[in-house]
């Protein structure tokens, strides 16, 4: 696999699984993809209904989603660069796939928490998106 392909796969895995902190009146730890989903709904609400509160909420969601999209991209980029220090191609592939598998495995653990889902209980990523 090419380096760019590995980087994109790792970035996607980070977007879907890496818990990042956020705050919209209340705080939590959620994947960036989940923040993106709420951002889309809030923007739709803002466009259809308007209002100062909706605008404020939208700004919070857009800002934090954008921030973590960038942060996860940088993490994926530096991780793939670090992977290049490994000498053999098989070791590089194994390291990349191992990292992605670890992230995907974490998705099944109750490490995500937001007051907006399950009353704030820790849940896995599937429950988060239900």
């Amino acid at each position, binding site marked *: 696999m090419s380096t760019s392909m590995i980087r994109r796969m790792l970035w996607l895995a980070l977007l879907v699984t890496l818990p990042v902190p956020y705050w*919209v*009146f*209340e705080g939590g730890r959620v994947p960036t993809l989940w923040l993106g989903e*709420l951002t889309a*709904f*809030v923007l*739709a*609400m803002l*466009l*259809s*209904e*308007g*209002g*100062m*509160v*909706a605008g404020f*909420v939208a700004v919070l969601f857009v800002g934090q989603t954008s921030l973590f999209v960038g942060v996860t991209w940088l993490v994926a980029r530096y991780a793939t660069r670090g992977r290049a220090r490994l000498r053999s191609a098989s070791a590089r592939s194994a390291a990349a796939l191992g990292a992605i598998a670890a992230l995907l495995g974490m998705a099944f653990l109750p490490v995500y928490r937001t*007051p*907006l*889902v*399950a*009353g704030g209980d820790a849940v896995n990523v599937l429950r988060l998106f239900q």
Partner: protein
Amino acid sequence: MLHTGTAARARAPALALTARALGMALALAMAPAATRAIAITTVPDPAAAVPPLVRTEKRAPCDHFDPLRRPYFGDLHVHTAFSLDASTQGTRNRPSDAYRFARGEAVGLQPFDGNGKPRRTLRLSRPLDFAAVTDRAEFFGEFDVCATPGLPGHDSPTCMIYRRWPRLAFYRINGITSGAPKKIRRFDFCGEDGKRCLEAARTPWGEIQDAAEGAYDRTAACTFTTFVGYEWTGGPNTDNLPRNAIFRNDAVPPLPAGLCGDPDLVAQGYRLGVPMGGDLRAPTAGTATAPSFVVRAERDGGTPERPGTALQRIQIVKGWIENGAARERVFDVAGDARSGAGVDPTTCATSGPGAEALCAVWQDPDFDPAQRAFYYARVLENPTCRWSTWICNAAGVRCEDPATVADGFEGCCDASYPKTVPERAWTSPIWYAPVGTKAGP
């Protein structure tokens, strides 16, 4: 599901009278707000006869009536799934469940498992004697639309957020109620003038009434009493606390929208209130609460050729004498002065939003029961061309081209004459006078 109990508070209805001026219909009225309090006397006075009980409903007299009175315990501030606060935090109990709970039955509480079974239950150790469900009335219709598949608006983004992330909807909707400057803004999915949601509000409001009637013991045993009620939460710029309206019997308005939503507003005004031009006396019971004013205005329909202009706002003007000098203060009580409505003076074409009707219930924040004062209402339309602008335009005057300014039309280009004007209507004042003083001007 339950809030803390509060003492009952009743208010004399505020009233209205209509008049027409400048094509706009106005209603303005006021009435002293009276409060009831619980009093404890130390020495019964046989001469102080208990006022005769006036029953306002059909029911059997209680078989344990005690002329010396008995204490009863109840809760007049109860929320169910119809309230924003409760439903967005997972409450599924409805008004009938609340009354079951008040009567001593167990009810299930959130969180619920995958089969909808509550993980907690709660029961009162001592059942109550009376209760009133007082759900937040502002958004009855919105919640019914959001919760009922198939209704127009059910698939709006706001409703999707309400169903999937209700806690997020809590912030969104609370922001509207606590920040509303004059009037609760209806969501766009409610359609024109919010009609869709106002119609949908009849469903939960009806269920609240049915639940109250179902739990009310009208037999001579008198084991449990219910009241139909609602909470009004909207507070201009968070200035107000929520208030509960408790009805004394089952004769309630078709919608819990306050006096402005009462179809009998005008009739109530004539029957019970002080109309425009009338004198208002201070309450005699020592209550210093400011009187309530109701003012309502409707847009002039105009003619097919020249339709009337939409309304911009209602103001109440207060006047009084202070240190021998006349003072005046103007309050915006409905509508929005910064709505963005405007007019192009070159064509007299109007633009921007405006209201077909405006209504408000208002209390003077600076009311002094010892101070004589007068109050009148003023209704402003959106800006339109001044009469002189119409004439100038009809004469083809263009100030940038002096050749178009004919003799006698020089004033068209005089900047001291306004090009536009907000047309207005106003009422006769209501005169307030403290007890022992002369009312009127």
